[in-house]
């Protein structure tokens, strides 16, 4: 979107008018159920009134599939909250590569953390010359209950905008959806939450 806003708008208009469209040689022809759902998703905050973005998210999930979608590949009403919409690291890399036509390099996996000794140095070396995306377990930093034992699985993809270090505290500024978030965490927590580091050519 940042690189080719006009192409994105043309694609969305064509998709809306004709029910199918091509973006960067990727042809999208969503199913009838996806077309019916786009614009009608509810209880998702500001996404409720962003109908075009609903269409964009649904057609992306409808086209690209990974092993997490194996048992639920066909969209039915309500599947936007189910495994139909989930994305693993390899699928994410593939989506970026195909949609943006750029080289993507990733370390890490869906269950085992990357073999990076000092994540802060690794990220700060790459952030200026590349777009850096992280695959993180957001439940550790954004706690939702008071249990100490938590499943160690990644939950979110974020785009890292800035990273800086003062003493043992690391300040991250990232974009996920909507605005940006700035957060302070310890070096230990940073290592704990990262499951994947995706470096994308600018």
């Amino acid at each position: 979107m940042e690189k080719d806003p006009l192409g994105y708008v043309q694609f969305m208009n064509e998709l809306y008018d004709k029910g199918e469209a091509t973006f960067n040689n990727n042809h999208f022809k969503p199913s009838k159920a996806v077309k019916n759902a786009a614009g009608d998703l509810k209880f998702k905050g500001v996404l409720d009134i962003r109908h075009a973005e609903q269409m964009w998210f649904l057609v992306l999930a409808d086209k690209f599939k990974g092993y997490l979608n194996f048992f639920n590949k066909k969209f039915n009403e309500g599947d936007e909250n189910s495994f139909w919409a989930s994305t693993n690291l390899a699928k994410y890399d593939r989506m970026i590569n195909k949609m943006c036509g750029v080289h993507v390099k990733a370390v890490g996996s869906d269950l085992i953390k990357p073999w990076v000794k000092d994540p802060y140095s690794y990220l700060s070396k790459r952030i200026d010359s590349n777009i850096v995306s992280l695959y993180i377990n957001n439940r550790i930093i954004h706690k939702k209950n008071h249990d100490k034992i938590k499943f160690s699985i990644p939950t979110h993809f974020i785009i890292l905008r800035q990273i800086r270090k003062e003493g043992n505290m690391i300040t991250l500024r990232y974009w996920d959806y909507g605005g940006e978030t700035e957060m302070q965490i310890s070096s230990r927590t940073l290592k704990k939450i990262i499951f994947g580091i995706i470096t994308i050519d600018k």
Partner: protein
Amino acid sequence: MIRHLSVILITCLLVAASCSTKIISTNIYQEQKEDLDNIERRYEKLNPKNHFSLAFTDKKFNIVSLEMITDTLTRIYEFNVTEQRLADTLLKYNYDTAGIFYLIRKMQQTNVTWINSFDYYVNDQPQQLIILSIKPVTVRYIFSPPKYVALTYFRTPQSFDEKGRLLDSRRTKQVRKIKGQVFYKITDRICYTITDKYR
């Protein structure tokens, strides 16, 4: 013998896993109505000037996660409530320091783990509600999830079905979900749900 032991062990595990957490009080809102309504009113007064949310991330209500929210950036910092950094941060970003400290004390006293405002849309028109979660006294079995009571304060009277479930609007019979949860009527403006997440 070993076979018997494993059967007993598996049975115990299944029984334990099937027991859900029990909340001791069945009427938390009525028991703490004054304090809870006071917290909501105080938050409603402070929030519009500088939007924020507060969450206690530890069981002893000592660690507070402060989210300072603007249109373009959300800052999330975690503090021990006794730390000077908390007051310094609130001052730096022009928040009502005394008002937020009062709110923190009230939340600690009433076991309110989280307070936030939440945007939702009715017929594409923006609406806002205030949501707060209480950590009740519970009897908890091994493997059973924690339980919290979440309260929503709407600005306008809402519609409910015959089971007391919150509806999307007066015209539809669709049950409205907030953060994936069905809410039930307390008053025409206040609803509750029992959930295993406080936010």
